[in-house]
């Protein structure tokens, strides 16, 4: 219950940040990717801003034995660069460019543009299910 409350607060803050920064607007995100058009640099400032507290958080994390409200850290520890990672990132980038949407802003957008965000999210979940249906090789 306590953990869910913290996660709700974190999600809410995340949504506030996405909205404040303008990243909930697909046109602005696509503007960042639009180097041949009227380039909009806002996304670079958002990334720079987000990395500051997170870089600090990683420094603190190294000194902690366990998180403040949970039993242990569960963090990715893979370092391998493989084809799955590369192909996944490239396909994601194509979709990101087409719609100007990635998962965070799309979910946040549910309360601002329910129809557009809803269609995108339904398709996104279908895409996730399709990926799950892939045979896991190697």
């Amino acid at each position, binding site marked *: 219950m306590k953990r869910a409350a913290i996660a709700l607060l974190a999600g809410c803050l995340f949504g506030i940040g996405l909205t404040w920064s303008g990243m909930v607007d697909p046109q602005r995100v696509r503007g960042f990717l639009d180097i041949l058009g009227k380039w909009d640099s806002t996304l670079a400032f958002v990334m720079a801003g987000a990395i500051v507290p997170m870089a600090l958080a990683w420094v603190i994390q190294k000194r902690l034995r366990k998180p403040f409200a949970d039993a242990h850290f569960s963090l990715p520890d893979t370092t391998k660069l493989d084809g799955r990672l590369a192909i996944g990132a490239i396909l994601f*980038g194509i979709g990101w460019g087409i719609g100007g949407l990635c998962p965070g802003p799309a979910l946040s957008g549910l309360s601002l543009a329910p129809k557009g965000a809803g269609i995108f999210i339904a398709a996104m979940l279908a*895409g996730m299910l399709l990926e799950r249906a892939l045979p896991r090789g190697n």
Partner: protein
Amino acid sequence: MTAAFPHAQSVDGFVGGLIIGIAAAVMLLALGRIAGVSGLTARATGIATGGASRSVAIAFVLGLPLGSLLTAQIAGGTAVHYPPSPVLLIIAGLLVGFGTRLGSGCTSGHGVCGLSRLSRRSMFATMLFVASGFVTVAAMRLGGLL
């Protein structure tokens, strides 16, 4: 068709980014997890199992539209311009869902959390999805879709 942009919002962008980073820091330091929205969404919907507890994932995902609504209410509205074509939204959504699962993350997990951790995988993935986004939008512009 050229979109009429207001000037890039560097200050609002940076401040919003700071808030996003603080939210991700809360997830890491309090709950020991990466604030990766694609992973948490898959977990919340039951598409992925294991990892974060499901209630944590659901709560985080519900917080996102709540935070947006709150901000828009206080700011007196937020302009969002979605692509009008449902077909484009569906193609984009399918690619984003499939790609983020195959590539183990999106802008939040690889971009915000991974880059700040100097993760090799995240730097590689971010470089690729940003490059592929640039190429995609450039192709759309050259093809007269924008």
